[in-house]
Every structure is written in structure tokens, then in C-alpha cells.
């Protein structure tokens, strides 16, 4: 049985090299590709043609939901479900509700940003095809890998291999799925 191909990976030595390679691959028309790097590199998503993440908007939405939940939980409990006169204060004594409302806002936004990020990144996920690279361990250490996936429309095993080799990488490797 022939093994299925995930893509072709090329390894580089520095952030500058991988940005240059990513730019060339983008302008050559490759779309289904990603870079695997040991630390965040500011210009890299741009060079790969990746869109800006929408995480911030999701978090903003959840923050508003959190604030409303926090406030109306207290409002409902104090005015409808169990009205209790404490010190002659009005039932909807909203200044007293500010802190819990605030903490709910923070709680919702923090956990949304953390968990949404993990979810969109497909984590937890013990397996990723890039781990099939012979030296995949170097990615988290000090190497920078560009991988053009076989799913890409322009992907052609020999041509893409030649293209990657022309970018002057350390080596080009076929990565199984």
C-alpha cells in the first residue's frame, strides 16, 4: 500500500530565511501551506498569506455575554427570585453588583481566549502529520520548517520539490500523512 503524502517540508535556519521562503511560495501561488517554527515570528503569517485571527472579536462577544450574565444573575436573584431587604437598600442595588459583574466579564473573556485558541488550533491533539518528519523535534528547538501540503491545487510532487529546493533550504523531505 502506498503511503499517503501530507506534503513537502523544507527546513531553514533562521526566521529571515523562512519569511523569504514563505513570500516566494505565496507569490508562486501556493495556498495550502504552513510554517512550523519555535517561536512566534511577527511577519510570518502575513508572508504565508494567512488571514488575521478573529479571536479578538469572539472574546469581545463573550465578554459582553459574561457581563450580562453576571449582572442579570444578581438582578434576577435579588428582585424576582428571592427579594431580600438588606439594610433598606433598593432590591436592584446595582452598585453592589458591579464587582461580580466585572469578575464574570473577566472570567468569560479569559477562558474564551484560552480555550477558543486551543480549539481552533485543534488542540489537544496528540498527533500531527508534521511529527512524521525525521527531525521534527528540531522545530521546537531552533529550526524553521515550511510545509506545502499535498492538498494544494498547485501541488505537484516533482515540481514542488524543485521549487522548494530552489529556496536554498537545508533539505526537502516528503512528509507522510
Amino acid at each position, binding site marked *: 500500500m502506498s503511503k499517503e503524502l501530507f506534503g513537502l517540508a523544507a527546513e531553514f535556519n533562521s*526566521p*529571515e530565511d523562512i519569511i523569504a521562503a*514563505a513570500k516566494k511560495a505565496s507569490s508562486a501561488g501556493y495556498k495550502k501551506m*504552513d*510554517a*512550523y*517554527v*519555535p*517561536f*512566534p*515570528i511577527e511577519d*510570518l*503569517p502575513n508572508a504565508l498569506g*494567512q488571514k*488575521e*485571527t478573529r*479571536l*479578538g472579536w469572539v*472574546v469581545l462577544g463573550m465578554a459582553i455575554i459574561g457581563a450580562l450574565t453576571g449582572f442579570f444573575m*444578581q438582578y434576577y*436573584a*435579588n428582585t424576582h*427570585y*428571592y427579594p431580600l431587604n*438588606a439594610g433598606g*437598600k433598593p432590591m436592584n*442595588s446595582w452598585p*453592589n*453588583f458591579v*464587582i*461580580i459583574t*466585572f*469578575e*464574570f466579564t*473577566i*472570567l468569560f*473573556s*479569559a*477562558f474564551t*481566549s*484560552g480555550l*477558543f*485558541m*486551543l480549539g*481552533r*488550533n*485543534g*488542540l*489537544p*491533539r*496528540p*498527533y*500531527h502529520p*508534521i511529527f512524521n518528519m525525521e527531525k521534527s*523535534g*528540531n*522545530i*521546537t*528547538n*531552533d529550526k524553521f520548517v515550511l510545509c506545502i501540503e499535498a492538498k494544494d491545487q498547485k501541488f505537484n510532487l516533482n515540481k514542488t520539490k524543485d521549487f522548494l529546493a530552489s529556496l536554498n533550504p537545508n533539505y526537502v523531505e516528503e512528509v507522510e500523512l
Partner: protein
Amino acid sequence: MAKFQETTRVIVPGQTYAGIDDIVAEPLERDLFKTPRWWWISLSIALPIAGLWLFSVIWLITHGIGIFGNNQPVAWAYPIVNFVWWIGIGHAGTLISAVLLLFRQQWRTSINRAAEAMTLFAVVNAGLYPILHLGRPWVFYWLAPYPNTQGLWPQFRSPLDWDLFAIGTYASVSALFWYIGLIPDFASLRDRAKNSFMKWFYAILSLGWSGSAKAWQRYGRAYLILGAVSFPLVLSVHSTIALDFAVSQLPGWNNTILPPYFVAGAVFAGFAFVLILMIPLRKVYGLKHVITMNHLENSAKMMLATGMIVLYGYALELFMGWYSGVEFERYTYWSRVFGDHGWAFWLLIFFNGLMIQPLWFKSVRTNTKWLFFIAVMVSIGMWLERFVIVIVSLTTDFMPSSWGDFHATFWDRSLYFGTFGVFFTLWLLFIRLFPAIASSEMKELVHHDNSHGHSEVHS
């Protein structure tokens, strides 16, 4: 390991990406039996103390709150003093990781991980105190809104319930922030691991992090948002704790300056504790080229600045007591300074006011022995501050007929002493099993250093 000279730059120049990994991972990758002797010795001291803590907790639960010195009128005694003390320490960790992240202070990078761990372990101790202080700790969940057969809700108007939400949010968000930061470093340790147990251990913790550029983009945004929400969170938590006092009518507590000055005090105590932990850590792990003199000096500056704010708070409290014209307020502050417990106030001024003044001099700020000594003094001073606010205020409130006194018991002291055992046990396990330095962030710093020339970092 080679000796590096002391430097005031963020990191010593000439670091490589792989070199950072080696530095960070070396202490974790050692064989169990090659763990340095100081680690075993420290653990063998910390563990019995943690045992004393556990024993005190069991004794408390089986015998009731009466084993403490708490009485009427001093119903809030050691447990609340220690609770505020520990949570204040925690705040510097969040401040370093969140606030300095937002202000793009690069010097945070070497110490944020360890400082966040300090936060978590301090919050463990702090968070348990109010629960243990409840009298019936096993029903602490009554503070939370949950569906129950009695059809009851907690009293949302009470600052004590605000506490639950503030501390609960703080503890869980701090843990999340810390863990999210650790994921890429766990992946790096997974890929370096030599034996199968370590590979398995770090693979599980890393959640399968692949390091893809898209993942990093989302990760960076999520991390920034976590920092952005942690900043107001840390301010709100200690403000809420201050409101526990300020919302009451007790002279000495009912004071609008309490929230900001509690926050400053928390940061003050926290940076002192950061120094207490970092000075030995950088020495025993040979991290002097990563946690440089620059970090220590900046922490010292923070300590001096917040310390002066706290001093201003003391002065303003006394002034407002006099200026209020209220007899009870005036008497409370008079007795705070000249009364039976006046010694605590003057010691507090000595530790928190006088002892930090040498920090104006650079030669003191760059001397680790001095810094360590001053940090210990400040920690004692901040404990005394809470003692003065909580206990001394309670002993003499309104009617002389209801005045009282407070004497700590053995269990008051053993529980407090035990919290150090809990803290340091967790701390020692942390520095042995988890990367104490954020290696992926350090690599980013190395990249910056390489590509933007070797300019001094402004801080």
C-alpha cells in the same frame, strides 16, 4: 556551565536559540538521582512543614475554629491577616506577566514564568484561608450560586461574596495564563526528551503543540488578551479585598483610600517575594545570564516606588482620621500609633518605610545580598501592616465596654508557618518538573537582539 559576568542588559549577548533550550531544559532533563543535593535538602525541609500545615488543617476541621485566638471583638485575626498577605504576594506575578507584557517591557520575559508560578502557589495558600476561617469549611460552596433544594441564593450585596468571585476568577485565570504560556515549552521538552516517561509526560502536557505559524498567530493573540484582562483583574482582586474592610463601618477600615493603597501594598510585597525567590534561583541554576542584574534592579525600583505609595497611604490614613473630626476615627488612629499595639505600627514604619530607603542607591539595588535582606524586611513589614489594619483596628472599636485583646495560639502560628511548607514544596516541584524560564519567549528575545542590533533595552 561556563561563568557569565553580571550584566545589566536583559540577557547576555550572543545567546542562540538552541542555547536557550539547553539552559532551560538542563535542570529538568537530569536523571532523578542526579537531582542536585540542595534540592533534596530543601524538599526535606519544606515537606515536613507542609505536613504541619496539613495537620493543623485537620486539627482545625476536627476541633473547630476555637483552636485559633479569634474572639469577640477580634473575629478576623490571623487567618485574614495571612490571607491578605499571601494574596498580595501573588499579585506581583500577575503584574510582571500581564502588565509588563502590555507595556512591552522585554525584561519581563526571563522572570514571568517563575513569577506566575509564585502567584499560583501564593493563591493556593491565600484562597484556603478564608475557607478554613469559615468555621464550617466543608460548606464553603454555599457562597457560590448553584441550584439547591432550599431555593436560596448567596447574598450578592456582601463583600464576602465578592471575594469568592474575585479570588475564584483570579485563581482560575492565573492558572490558565500560566498553562497557556507553558504549552510551547512543554512541546520543546517533549521533543528533547530522552526517556519514554519524560516524552509521555511532556507530550500530554503540550497537548500536541506543532508550532505552526497559524497556531502561533492565534496563540499570540490569545496570550495578549489574557494579559489585557489580567491587568484589570489583578487590580480588582485586591481592591475587592480592601472593600471587605472599607465597606464596613469600623473606624480604621471605613476608608476610601483602602483599595488603591492595598493594591500598591500587594505589588510592594509581591516584588519583595519575587526577589526572595529569584536571587537564589538564578544562583543555583546558573541563570545569571538570563535573569540578569537588570531584572533584580527593576524589581527593586518597583519595590521602592510602590513602597513610597504605601507610606503615603499610611500618612494619609492618619491624616484622614484626624481630619474626619469623628471621635472614634481619631481615637482609633491615635491608639494605632500610641496605643497598646503601637509597637506594631512603629515596627511597620521601620520595615516598610525606613528599610527601603537604601534602594535609592544603585549600589544597593545591584547588590544581591542587600536586595535579599531588604526583601525579607519588606515581607515582614507587609505582614505587620495587615496585623495593624485587621487586628489592632478590631481591638478598640466604638464602646470601651466592647473592647478586647487578641493573643495568637499555637495553631494560629502553626498554620501560618505551614503555608510556607506548602508554598516551597510546590515551588521546588515546579522548578524540577516545569521550565522555570519561558524558553520560546526567550528565543523571541534572542531573535530581536540579533536582528535589531545590540542596543540597550530601555526599562
